[in-house]
């Protein structure tokens, strides 16, 4: 396979040698994805990777004008392929799960949540209960419903940002900003109570 400079990749992918350049790019992307996804995909690895590569090539041809030349073209292209692969893998993994499935059962109303796994030490348990109620109150009263839902879906349910974003009819960047505001809000409310996140972490250490 021919080695190309960045400019040669860009020229060949648009020019008369496009078919050969696409074929070469396909081999590069496939090799990278097969190696890096082999531990994450249990069945039909090659078929799935072929599909990811096909979709990636279309995306790369469409987005080539955004390549800034700060890396090798193949590194940039592999980045696009990894994003395409993860978008699909996460869609498959979470397709049947709603946000409601991930929320603590009593988070919809204003009843304080109960700690699911309290410490055996009574004093520590009392501190944890107080802190849990405080955090629950902050979630309910200081955050918007969207912030609270997203925060719990990610922190408690483990759903990736982009899947939460889809369900809230927004995008990953906008959701990140929403959560950034929520985290700042929680940090400031803790400070107002004379607490830091470290204090809370200490209360829940070694459980």
């Amino acid at each position, binding site marked *: 396979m021919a080695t190309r400079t960045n400019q040669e990749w860009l020229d060949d992918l648009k020019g008369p040698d496009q078919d050969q350049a696409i074929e070469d790019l396909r081999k*590069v992307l496939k*090799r*990278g*994805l097969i*190696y*890096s*996804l082999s531990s*994450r995909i249990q069945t039909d690895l090659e078929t799935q990777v072929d599909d990811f590569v096909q979709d990636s090539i279309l995306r790369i041809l469409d987005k080539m004008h955004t390549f*800034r030349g*700060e*890396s*090798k073209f*193949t*590194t*940039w292209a*592999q*980045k696009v*392929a*990894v*994003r395409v*692969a*993860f978008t699909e893998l*996460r869609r498959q993994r979470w397709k049947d799960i709603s946000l409601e499935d991930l*929320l*603590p*059962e*009593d*988070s919809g109303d204003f009843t304080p*949540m*109960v*700690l*699911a*796994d309290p410490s055996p030490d009574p004093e520590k348990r009392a501190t*944890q209960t107080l*802190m*849990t109620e405080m*955090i*629950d109150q902050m979630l309910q009263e200081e955050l918007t419903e969207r912030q609270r839902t997203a*925060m719990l879906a990610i*922190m*408690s349910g483990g759903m*990736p*940002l*982009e899947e939460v974003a889809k369900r809230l009819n927004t995008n*990953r*960047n906008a959701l*990140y*900003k929403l959560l*950034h505001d929520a*985290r*700042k809000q*929680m*940090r400031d409310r*803790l400070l107002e109570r004379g607490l830091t*996140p*470290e204090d*809370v*972490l200490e209360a*829940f250490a070694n*459980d």
Partner: protein
Amino acid sequence: MKLSSETIRKMMLSVKSTRDVELTCGHCYDELDHFIEMKLSGKKPEEAMPLVQEHLERCAACREEYEVLLEAIQAMIE
């Protein structure tokens, strides 16, 4: 499901790592290829691009993509 100690810990770790200025996932993605090439060439991208490094520590989705991309690029150059 109740709010578990683990959820509280995760929440507090994310609050602890909060900065007034943070990169979004999109900004992190824009820099990722450059960041990885610096890493692979033995330079210290975490010093040159601390906001990217912080985002990767904070955002599980971006960190997962970064780790897989790093492996994929290593496979490409082997």
